[in-house]
């Protein structure tokens, strides 16, 4: 275990009992965001918009970057917002894998409430799988892509017959996604593999739901998280058995997604109340033990608790993926260019929703342009 991971684990071990002081903050989106559009930055805004709101292709064409919404929160205030292609501030947007970061936060809330521990076997919360090989998987494995399951994360350009995720969302696995996930065989022992997996995240969301139901009843995600931070219109889809599609199918407006980013910008606190346990945001934004031990330069990004990180991981010869922006940047990222980007050193949250079918939005290229607008 590396030094930072050890420190984070120690914090988490004591965090549930020790309620740390939340960061001082005067501005909170009580209901909606306060708005103060940035002024005097016409050239920077023009550069940002010429990048993000490309005019390539027809309205419904699939070439170029298709930004449907872009929201910038700086110092707690909405300073820039634009929508396109028929979307407005009122339209929810598909998150794709941004949902994974939401699911890991829900696990954190369950940990705060003492309803689970990250080192619990998933079977402690899914008793129908007691006695199966799945019991070697811990909750922490599920939120760090380390279950060891032989999951194939192929999308529309991959092999349809071997894609675990397409089968789970649209095919034979869609009726009971939990069974679909946990009947995969293992390609490594749990904790001995880092492999990006919507199945791992969906497993985490299923565990979080079962754990949180003990305190919050049916539909626990709303009283536990979404109602607390004012994500009033969020949708979490589920299969016919009621298992949440927590790896991919969360819908919210960009302003609501920004509130989720703002929660992480503020160390898991909301208006003076600790929502996530002390140390959870630090653990979420530190390369996980699984990534440090088993990630490779070929893997997408260093990840913590299902958040993507800008820091290099020299142990794995992984460079910074976002060289032009602050090193403390972290992001929730989804297919077709969905992004919640958080930059603590700049007091900044950026939400971008889109429909990039050709090549997804580059976080580095977007953020460096946003920084020119807000600095």
């Amino acid at each position, binding site marked *: 275990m590396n030094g930072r991971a050890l420190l984070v684990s120690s914090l988490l071990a004591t965090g549930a009992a020790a309620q740390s002081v939340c960061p001082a903050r005067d501005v909170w989106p009580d209901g909606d965001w306060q708005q103060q559009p940035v002024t005097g930055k016409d050239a920077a805004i023009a550069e940002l918009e010429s990048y993000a709101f490309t005019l390539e292709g027809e309205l419904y064409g699939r070439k170029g970057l298709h930004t449907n919404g872009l929201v910038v929160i700086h110092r707690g205030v909405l300073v820039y917002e634009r929508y396109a292609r*028929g979307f407005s501030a009122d339209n929810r947007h598909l998150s794709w894998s941004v949902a994974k970061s939401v699911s890991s936060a829900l696990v954190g809330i369950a940990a705060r409430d003492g309803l689970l521990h990250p080192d619990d076997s998933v079977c402690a919360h899914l008793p129908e799988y007691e006695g199966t090989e799945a019991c070697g998987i811990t909750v922490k494995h599920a939120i760090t892509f380390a279950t060891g399951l032989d999951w194939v994360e192929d999308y529309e350009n991959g092999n349809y017959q071997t894609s675990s995720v397409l089968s789970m969302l649209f*095919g*034979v696995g869609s009726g009971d996604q939990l069974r679909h996930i946990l009947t995969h065989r293992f390609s490594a022992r749990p904790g001995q593999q880092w492999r990006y997996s919507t199945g791992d995240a969906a497993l985490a969301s299923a565990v979080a739901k079962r754990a949180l139901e003990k305190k919050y009843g049916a539909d626990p995600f709303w009283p536990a998280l979404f109602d607390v931070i004012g994500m009033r219109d969020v949708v979490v*889809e589920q*299969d016919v058995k009621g298992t949440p599609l927590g790896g991919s199918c969360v819908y919210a407006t960009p302003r609501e997604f920004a509130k989720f980013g703002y929660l992480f910008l503020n160390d898991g606190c909301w208006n003076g109340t600790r929502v996530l346990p002390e140390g959870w945001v630090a653990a979420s934004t530190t390369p996980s033990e699984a990534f440090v031990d088993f990630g490779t330069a070929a893997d997408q990004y260093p990840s913590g608790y299902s958040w993507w990180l800008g820091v290099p991981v020299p142990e794995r010869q992984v460079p910074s993926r976002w060289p032009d922006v602050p090193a403390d940047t972290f992001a929730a990222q989804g297919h077709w260019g969905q992004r919640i980007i958080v930059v603590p050193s700049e007091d900044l949250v950026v939400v971008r929703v889109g429909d990039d079918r050709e090549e997804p939005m580059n976080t580095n290229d977007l953020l460096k342009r946003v920084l020119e607008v807000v600095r």
Partner: protein
Amino acid sequence: MKRLLLLVTLALAGCADPDAHPRTFANSDLQLAVGNGARMGCSCMFVMNMSEGYCREWVKASPDVAKLTFDVANKRVEASTFVSWTATAHFVDEKHGCVLR
């Protein structure tokens, strides 16, 4: 005739082999196409609240063989191919969006 041959080939492509590596699933491309069309079409229209025209483009996938029927009154979307595959998704409520059946 060529289109029929293509569809039969795609349907047969879904024969599962659980011992294969990587694992294969008993999906044909057609089943995935209608599942995608129904789920994504329903969510596009009733969760994202976009227009039918937008949603028809939003769900397009390869192979583009799914025929979509939007039932706005019942908040339901059916996707089908002219051979046997059909999938339906319907809007459940404002928290859970659409579910695929």
